[in-house]
């Protein structure tokens, strides 16, 4: 008991000591933990920082964005760029470049004079006023690098030339009507730039170029030859199409005179109008094969040797004439070769308006052409056709179409009778539309013979490119004016396909108001201006498209050859 007390007494002093010691230990431990926690925190923060840097960094450019153009490229079917982003210089006026003092080192008048010396088309007074205004602004968009160097030599820090991504068309005016334009807001305003605008601006899709069905080599050859033909015949304009008959892909589409989409000036604005898809024309005799094919299909023409009277045809106060007198009678092959309106009208009369109209509706002549570009609406007579309308439509009057309509119809005429919509997108083999049958294969085969004969012995002889088995039909129509037809202004068209033993491509060449010149022997008709263009284009594009000239092959026309005499006509 005592010992217990004593021990208690002693221990009470010790207890206090122990408490102090425990307390000190606790404090020390807490301090250690505190320090450890602090260091751990710092370590963790450092690690996070490292991890953060490793994962994201503070760079603004992520790897994926490098090289992504602000607007997607447009390329042709072989990958040749037709439109691309191009970092061009622009001239920017920054009055704050020298701080708060005067904006320019020299006087605005001197600087304006120096700038006008570099850009002669600038207006001195306006430029001087803009420089004097002291507002930051673009003085000029898209300047050449050498001009930028010359501006640099002026020694004006306020004149800056930042590089800005601009739309550039390396091929210049080539295929301008297909490509179109982009507005100052960076969005497409015309042509495929407008059609493909969504794809070209979508960040997910614009990395890959948009592929068109055009072939730049074919386009170049077509434009070149059309331009030559246009100059030789003094035409106001020209148009042309090359169309794949089996897929409906447009390999070339030209409207001349063209414009340079890189530089739109007031002089080139009228040329932006596309003659091939926007304008409708009465195409004339090129419609005759379509009438004849419909008649063969309907069983109206069963005998190619049957002769029709070829004298002027009186229909209710209206007389149908031919360009020449071809004798008392003609059969169908002769009518096509000499391009007889009278015989074609009789064939159409036998065929009847409803059947001719049904064929033409199936060919899409009563609606806008199937093409991505904005297109013109045909002049199409609705309701039941009177007899005279049937007859005039049969040889291409009283019905106005775009050349695009004609190209698709000719493709169906020669490819075995299948009509397909035309397109400017390159089609993979599995994307080719099935199309719809307009004519039987036998009708198409007969038409190939007839078209080939027109070129080998008829009005289209100037288009007969040796070895390419070209077949086609000329058409020269007087332009319709407010009242009647203008005798002096023609639209001449040559619609052709080659090679006729297995047609692959349709070519349309069209001249707007050609004149008789020395080069065209004083003639104005399609045989003298549009047909030679086809005759020159085909040898240039044939080998590029895998069609080799071969003088040993041709369409077999031995059953029709005895039916024709030789002669000229339109």
């Amino acid at each position, binding site marked *: 008991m005592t010992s217990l007390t004593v021990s208690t007494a002693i221990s009470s002093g010790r207890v206090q000591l122990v408490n102090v010691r425990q307390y000190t230990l606790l404090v020390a431990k807490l301090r250690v933990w505190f320090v450890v926690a602090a*260091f751990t925190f710092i370590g963790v923060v450092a690690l996070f920082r490292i991890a953060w840097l490793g994962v994201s960094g503070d760079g603004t450019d992520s790897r994926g964005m490098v090289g992504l153009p602000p607007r997607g490229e447009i390329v042709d079917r072989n990958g040749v*760029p037709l439109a691309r982003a191009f970092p061009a210089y622009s001239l920017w006026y920054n009055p704050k470049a020298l701080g708060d003092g005067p904006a320019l080192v020299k006087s605005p008048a001197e600087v304006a004079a120096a700038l006008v010396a570099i850009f002669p088309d600038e207006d001195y007074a306006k430029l001087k006023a803009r420089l004097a205004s002291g507002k930051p602004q673009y003085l000029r968009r898209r300047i050449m690098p050498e001009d930028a160097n010359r501006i640099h030599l002026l020694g004006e820090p306020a004149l800056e030339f930042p590089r800005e991504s601009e739309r550039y068309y390396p091929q210049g005016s080539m295929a301008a009507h297909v490509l179109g334009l982009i507005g100052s807001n960076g969005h497409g305003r015309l042509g495929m730039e407008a059609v493909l605008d969504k794809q070209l601006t979508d960040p997910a899709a614009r990395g890959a170029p948009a592929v068109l069905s055009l072939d730049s080599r074919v386009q170049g050859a077509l434009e070149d030859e059309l331009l030559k033909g246009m100059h030789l015949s003094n035409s106001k304009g020209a148009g042309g199409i090359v169309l794949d008959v089996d897929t409906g892909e447009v390999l070339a589409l030209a409207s001349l005179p063209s414009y340079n989409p890189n530089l739109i000036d007031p002089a080139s604005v009228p040329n932006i109008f596309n003659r091939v898809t926007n304008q409708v024309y009465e195409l004339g005799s090129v419609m005759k094969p379509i009438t004849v094919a419909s008649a063969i299909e309907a069983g109206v023409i069963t005998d190619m040797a049957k002769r029709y009277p070829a004298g002027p045809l009186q229909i209710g106060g209206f007389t149908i004439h031919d360009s020449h007198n071809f004798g008392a009678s003609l059969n169908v092959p002769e009518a096509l070769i000499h391009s007889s309106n009278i015989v074609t009208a009789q064939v159409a009369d036998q065929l009847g308006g409803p059947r001719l109209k049904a064929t033409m509706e199936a060919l899409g002549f009563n609606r806008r052409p199937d093409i991505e570009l904005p297109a013109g609406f045909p002049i199409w007579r609705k309701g039941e056709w009177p007899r005279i309308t049937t007859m005039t439509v049969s040889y291409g009057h009283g019905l106005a179409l775009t050349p695009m309509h004609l190209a698709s119809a000719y493709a169906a005429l020669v490819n075995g009778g299948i009509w397909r919509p035309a397109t400017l997108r390159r089609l993979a083999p599995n994307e080719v539309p099935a199309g719809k049958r307009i004519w039987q294969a036998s009708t198409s085969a007969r038409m190939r013979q007839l078209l080939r004969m027109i070129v080998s012995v008829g009005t289209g002889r100037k288009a007969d490119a040796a070895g390419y088995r070209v077949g086609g039909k000329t058409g020269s129509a007087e332009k319709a004016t407010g009242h009647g037809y203008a005798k002096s202004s023609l639209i001449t068209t040559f619609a052709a396909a080659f090679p006729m033993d297995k047609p692959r491509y349709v070519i349309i060449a069209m001249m707007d108001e050609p004149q008789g010149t020395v080069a065209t022997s004083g003639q104005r008709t399609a045989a003298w201006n549009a047909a030679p263009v086809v005759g020159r284009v085909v040898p240039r594009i044939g080998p590029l498209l895998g069609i080799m000239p071969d*003088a040993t092959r041709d369409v077999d026309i031995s059953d029709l050859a005895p039916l024709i005499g030789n002669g000229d006509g339109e």
Partner: protein
Amino acid sequence: MMLTRSHARSIGWAAILAVCFALTVALSFRVNAVKSQVRLTERRIAQLQVENGLLETEFETRANQQQLTALNEVDFGYQAPTPAQYFESERQLADLGKPRGPDAPPMIRVAANDAPPAGTSVLPAMVNPLTGKALGADQPKADKAEPKAAAKPAEARLAERGSATLVERLSRVEQLSHMEKSPKVIDRKVPGLAPRLAAKADPKAKAAPKLAKAEVKPAPAKAKAAEPKPASRLAKAAAPKSAAPKSAAKPVIKVALKAPAKAHPGKSDRVAIE
């Protein structure tokens, strides 16, 4: 001062922590440095891509279709090839090599050593897939007695034979010993002369001009031997199809110009008349 154990330990900890901290900072700097290097490289890549695009665009602009057309019109004048410049098949090509007419004068001989030396095979040597060397390549080395000069042309000939394209092989005029007894001579120097002689001697022998054609051909074909072979048809010029039609016509036009030019000089005519 006496260092207690706990002091020493805490100083140790502190030192380790300091080292760790320093390492962390150093590592962080390093990471930042690498990161900024990557950024700079990316910027450089982007810059180079822009530059590349610029150069590409410039090239495309300078070589656009209109420029090429203008260039061709002013400087070259190439035209689209005519059907006569194409062959339908090898058979058609072979068809041109008809035997000479009965009264045709003997052709002019020129020296040529086309026959491969005995013992060399026309087949290319087999290549060891492991070493990549020809299987027979070691043997000539072992036999040092063989002079190097002799070995070299043989090797060159072998390479030539192995790599000869179809066009080159077709364009080679070989001796047709089984067809005619008098040796047919390869006339490369005066391509137009011999057929003209033949034609003058016997105007009815229509085979002669065709023969001439066949013999003129080796010149362009050889010049263009390195070009790819056309897929289905043999262009006489052996020009690639991918080229513009104008350029395809180039070698042929040259031949067409060359043949009359060489035939024209009065000398050869006079020889024939005399």
